[in-house]
């Protein structure tokens, strides 16, 4: 027989002003199973809590209902009090007679009756509460960082510096990402590589970081604290231990005319190559699609010249397995390429390039050694038109968002051009200028006012080629939408920042949600910006949304902080309000029939298949099993289960069912 204690709080006047608390306590006392019912001025005060503790001991209560404020306010307080008195905290419930009653109704019998209804409801619930123990999940204190751009690098270093192991996976032959391609960075115009490469080296040398370059995540299973990662290390066709990075092979390789990915197609590289001089690791890789040996079966020149005999033509991809406790996704972004702007002739005319290509032109380490020369004929362009919002903020192009970085880097590009070609005429077509950020607006102003960059507010309608010039047609909407044509030698399109090609596939591999543009979704747009909805998986950088470097770095450090916090304990303690699939004695074993409706409905992939086998090891039936590490306790599966085989602790069938009945059936406790 239940022995429930009801404790009615006045909350000073907050409750007692409109609710007759004495009546409530009296009525509660009459509810079957209530062994003790009192009211007090402030239940949350020390004496109030003491009252509860004493009652638990003296009346050896089996459950407690505190009729006071919202559980969102004081549930932890009272549950702690119960625990201190030796009552399982999950046998304590709160009846919200303040926010949901005394504060929202006038003083009246109806209000008091409602308070009584609420108490009766919670008494009915607590009678069916079960003593629950918090769930403990072990934590593997190794982090997996996917993506070796600035965000991934920052996250790796920050985590490694807290003394935890990091596995960094980069799909390209070298880490560095887009930042390593940049010439200068806004708003300071300091050289990108100068600030990045030291970080790259630090990653390579850090004792806590294991770098897998030229590798990709194959699969990720498990749950927070306990992931199992399989990493595909793509064959470099080279023994990394033997290779000393002398680069002889890359010089001798007969194939030389392959567009360099690093130089955004403006430069050339051999078939065996290091993407760029400061690459980390500084070890070449053979591009098998273009290597003569793989195509024709002969050559092997690199093998001959290699002083350490490191070349391995027969090398195969390798699968590396790793246990990790947390994952940071830092896969970055890409920019729109190809036949995306037929009206701009992008991809048709050599001298219409995108932002990254301009970065390479302006970069001292680029194909033109930092001189602005147009791709077609290497001439120094007299007139350059920069087009902002090329694709961004354009529903017709299916990209409705702002790419965020274009305003700033376009200003930077125009400046760099002017600094390098003093007599040059830079024009910028823009919609709006979005220079929110420390020293950003000032930077753009400088471009306009000191460097004399011509800003034209209007969109470009069409670009076509005429007698070796690029005719840019647009309108100046600040001068009465005057149509204008500019004869340009070079056009730079600030094409939209978009998610990487592989973004969707990866998201599905690791089970994180993503938006309609394939950017990864944060758990909460404001309050949980670096977490995903999948516990233990965090976000850093532009894979979540277009970002500039400082933002990406800040988020990376944030993610690292989250990982460190997770790793700061040996076990995760989680509220046990999770779903469980029932188990029965043989021959039934479980009422679950294994239709696995629950599995498709679970947002957390928390439902697994469990095979029940007889002694002879022969399969008897396959039933659902909830992984307590993954389940977040939404209960969607519970409502879907036809045979009512899944129940959820804290909101069980019995609890909510009895609540409904108790709420609506005013017994003799009625007034």
């Amino acid at each position, binding site marked *: 027989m239940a022995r429930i204690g009801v404790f009615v709080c006045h909350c000073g006047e907050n409750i007692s002003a409109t609710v007759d608390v004495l009546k409530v306590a009296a009525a509660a006392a009459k509810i079957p199973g209530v062994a003790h019912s009192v009211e007090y001025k402030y239940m949350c005060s020390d004496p109030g809590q003491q009252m509860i503790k004493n009652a638990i001991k003296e009346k050896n209560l089996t459950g407690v209902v505190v009729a006071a404020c919202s559980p969102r306010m004081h549930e932890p307080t009272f549950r702690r009090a119960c625990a201190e008195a030796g009552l399982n905290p999950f046998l304590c419930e709160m009846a919200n007679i303040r926010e949901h009653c005394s504060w929202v109704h006038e003083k009246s019998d109806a209000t008091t009756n409602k308070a009584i209804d609420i108490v009766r409801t919670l008494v009915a619930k607590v009678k069916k509460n079960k003593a629950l123990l918090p769930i403990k999940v072990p934590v593997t204190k190794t982090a997996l960082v996917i993506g070796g751009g600035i965000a991934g690098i920052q996250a790796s270093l920050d985590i490694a510096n807290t003394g935890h192991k990091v596995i960094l996976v980069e799909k390209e032959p070298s880490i560095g990402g887009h930042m390593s391609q940049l010439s200068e960075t806004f708003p300071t115009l300091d050289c990108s590589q100068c600030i990045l490469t030291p970080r790259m080296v630090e990653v390579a040398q850090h004792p806590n970081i294991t770098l897998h370059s030229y590798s990709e995540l194959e699969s990720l299973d498990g749950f927070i604290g306990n992931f199992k990662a399989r990493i595909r290390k793509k064959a470099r066709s080279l023994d990394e231990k033997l290779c000393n990075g002398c680069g002889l092979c890359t010089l001798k390789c007969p194939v030389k005319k392959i567009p360099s990915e690093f130089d955004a197609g403006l430069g050339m590289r051999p078939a065996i190559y290091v993407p760029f001089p400061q690459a980390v690791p500084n070890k070449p890789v053979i591009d098998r699609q273009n290597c003569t040996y793989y195509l024709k079966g002969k050559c092997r020149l690199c093998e001959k010249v290699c002083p350490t005999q490191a070349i391995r033509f027969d090398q195969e991809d390798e699968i590396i397995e790793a246990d990790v406790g947390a994952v940071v996704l830092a896969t970055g972004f890409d920019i729109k390429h190809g036949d995306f*702007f*037929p*009206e701009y002739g992008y991809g*048709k*005319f*050599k*001298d*219409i390039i995108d932002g990254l290509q301009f970065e390479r032109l302006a970069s001292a380490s680029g194909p033109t050694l930092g001189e602005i020369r*147009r*791709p*077609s*004929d290497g001439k120094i362009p007299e007139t350059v038109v920069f087009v902002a919002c090329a694709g961004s903020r354009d529903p*017709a192009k299916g990209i409705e968002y702002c790419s965020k970085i274009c305003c700033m880097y376009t200003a930077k590009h125009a400046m760099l051009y002017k600094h390098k070609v003093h007599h040059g005429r830079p024009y910028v077509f823009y919609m709006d200028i979005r220079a929110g950020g420390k020293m950003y607006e000032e930077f753009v102003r400088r471009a306009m006012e000191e460097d004399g960059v011509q800003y034209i507010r209007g969109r470009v309608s*069409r670009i*076509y*080629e*005429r*007698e*070796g010039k*690029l*005719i840019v047609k647009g309108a100046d909407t600040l001068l009465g939408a005057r149509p204008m044509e500019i004869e340009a030698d070079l056009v730079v399109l600030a094409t939209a920042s978009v998610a990487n090609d592989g973004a969707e596939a990866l998201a599905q591999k690791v089970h994180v949600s993503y938006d309609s543009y394939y950017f990864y979704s944060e758990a909460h747009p404001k309050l949980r910006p670096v977490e995903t909805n999948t516990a233990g998986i965090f976000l850093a950088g532009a894979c979540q949304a277009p970002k500039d470097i400082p933002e990406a770095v800040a988020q990376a450090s944030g993610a690292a902080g989250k990982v460190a916090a997770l790793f700061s304990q040996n076990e995760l303690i989680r509220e046990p309000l999770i779903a469980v699939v029932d188990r029965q004695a043989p021959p039934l074993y479980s009422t679950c029939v294994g239709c696995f409706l629950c599995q498709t409905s679970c947002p957390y992939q928390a439902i697994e298949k469990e095979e029940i086998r007889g002694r002879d090891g022969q399969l008897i039936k396959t039933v659902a099993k909830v992984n307590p590490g993954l389940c977040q306790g939404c209960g969607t599966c519970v409502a879907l289960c036809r045979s009512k085989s899944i129940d959820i602790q804290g909101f069980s069938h019995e609890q909510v069912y009895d609540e409904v009945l108790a709420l609506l059936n005013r017994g003799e406790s009625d007034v």
Partner: protein
Amino acid sequence: MKTGYYPGCSLKGAGREYSESLMAVADILGVKLPEIPDWNCCGATAAHNVSHDLSLALPARILAAAEKDDMDEVLVPCSACYNRLSVTRHELLQDEQLRQKISGLIEADYRGSAKVINIIEWLAGISDLETKIIAPFAHRVACYYGCLLVRPAGILNFDRPEDPQSMDQLLKKIGATPLDWAFKTECCGAGFSVSRTDIVAKLSGLILNDAVSRGAEAVIVACPMCHLNLDLRRPNIEKHAGKKFDIPVIYITQAVGLAMGIAPNKLGLQRHTVPVKFSASADRSAARETRAQKSVPGEK
């Protein structure tokens, strides 16, 4: 599948060679194109500047008549008419109340069952077109789509608005070499043909200039208004540009007709202001141009 034919006013007047050539082509193809009984003006550019209801009612009446005559689709060669009819169908299918209102105005229940198709959709839909080609139209051509054939893209959902390809594909089919040029969808001056010939002269001039400079032997059009501006207004254009253009402007149906070996006068070519001949000089200049183009940096 019954395809009705809506000529519209121009094809009975200034642009009658468009209609003549279409009929000649349809004959060879053995396709019947019954005119919509008792059709009326689509309202052209005037109606929608005056009254929204009127601009919907006029096309709605035409389409309702087509539906009444059990037509599943209506071929509308004139781009302007095509545009008005399509927009009307779209708006009325979007908004039930509006549909009922307009149906009331035209005293007929417009249901929207008849699809509106343009000349290119129609020709592209003919499977055995190639088999009818006996004299391939082996010329370098600039396919000129104009404004109304592809816009508003959201409503017409025909080809890609900024760089349409469908006419080029069609011209390839009949043996022509469509050129990549810049003025495919630029405005020719349209309705200013009468009120502001200077504007027409300027805009149409730019179009012809680019076509010629890229070595086109003919400009192919699908709109009587474009044709009128580029052909009938040629003297004004030349005056304004201060140079001569001998490049002919041909309706797509005329090009197809020629490729089918139909006699020029059956196609109404004799009605053009600019004589339809593909001068050797054009060829040479064209050849020169293409060589130039090759050497032009950036050109793929």
